[in-house]
């Protein structure tokens, strides 16, 4: 299940720190030290996040031994967006239909209750 590239991308994006790192990289490439600065976490913890992002293909790292700059690779992000957008659409449309359905059901119930009151002698069948 987790071997699928798209699933790996979703898992990588599930963490708020990793999302923040990606957001920073939109502005351009950065070193690990630079990326760690805004976060209250250790360098090894940042490295771990970067490894997850790298495995998911979301970032690429330079070859320079000392500062290996990280840069964003937007490819997998586009795949995720392509996936999520229709899914969002599915739910938005379903909500529209649920809204219509709930209105219709309540309109019918009201009509029914109205008729019931007119036909039923007071105090006998109640307003169930």
């Amino acid at each position, binding site marked *: *299940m*987790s071997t*699928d*590239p*798209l*699933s790996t991308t*979703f*898992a990588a*994006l*599930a*963490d*708020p720190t990793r*999302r923040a790192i990606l957001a920073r990289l939109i502005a351009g490439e950065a070193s690990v030290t630079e990326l760690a600065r805004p976060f209250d976490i250790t360098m090894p913890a940042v490295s771990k996040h970067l490894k997850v992002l790298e495995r998911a293909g979301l970032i690429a790292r330079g070859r320079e031994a000392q500062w290996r700059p990280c840069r964003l690779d937007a490819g997998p992000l586009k*795949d995720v967006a*392509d*996936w*999520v957008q*229709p*899914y*969002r*659409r*599915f*739910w*938005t*449309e*379903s*909500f*529209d*239909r*649920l*809204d*219509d*359905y*709930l*209105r219709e*059901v*309540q309109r019918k119930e009201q009509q029914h209750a109205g008729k019931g009151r007119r036909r039923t002698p007071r105090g006998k069948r109640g307003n169930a």
Partner: protein
Amino acid sequence: MPAKDAAAHRAANEGTPDLVLSRTFNAPRSLVFQAWTDPARVAQWWGPRGFTNPVCELDVRPGGAMRIHMRGPDGTVYPMSGTYEEIVEPERIVFVGSALDGTGRPLFAVRHTVTFADHGATTTLTVTAHVLSATPEGAPHLRGAEAGWTQQLERLDTYLAAA
């Protein structure tokens, strides 16, 4: 995946949802909850506009199965299956839903947490989705479903223009 990885994966996913959708409906909470748990009611609204649900079987209890066949305006059937994980009437439903391809293979699995917030005459419904697994083939599947109703709307538009 190993149980430990699965747990870690789940914990990570629960930290940040992939999709949150919320809407307030002009209906009391009990009715909105029924609209989610009574199969005959669910079949009336599940899926995009123009879709019907010729199969809608819901065993609404923890571990219970859901099976829905959505039928698009062009006649294409999009089967999905799922499992309920948590039912707290009338507040919360958790289920994992999977879309299936022609051979019954899951195209993706998404855990949905549905909450029903009571405001008397109105109810705020929130669907939080966590993608557990996804395949690239799932995207065309979703897009196919989308194209289905877009085509239908286009056809309607053409019809109205000609009338």
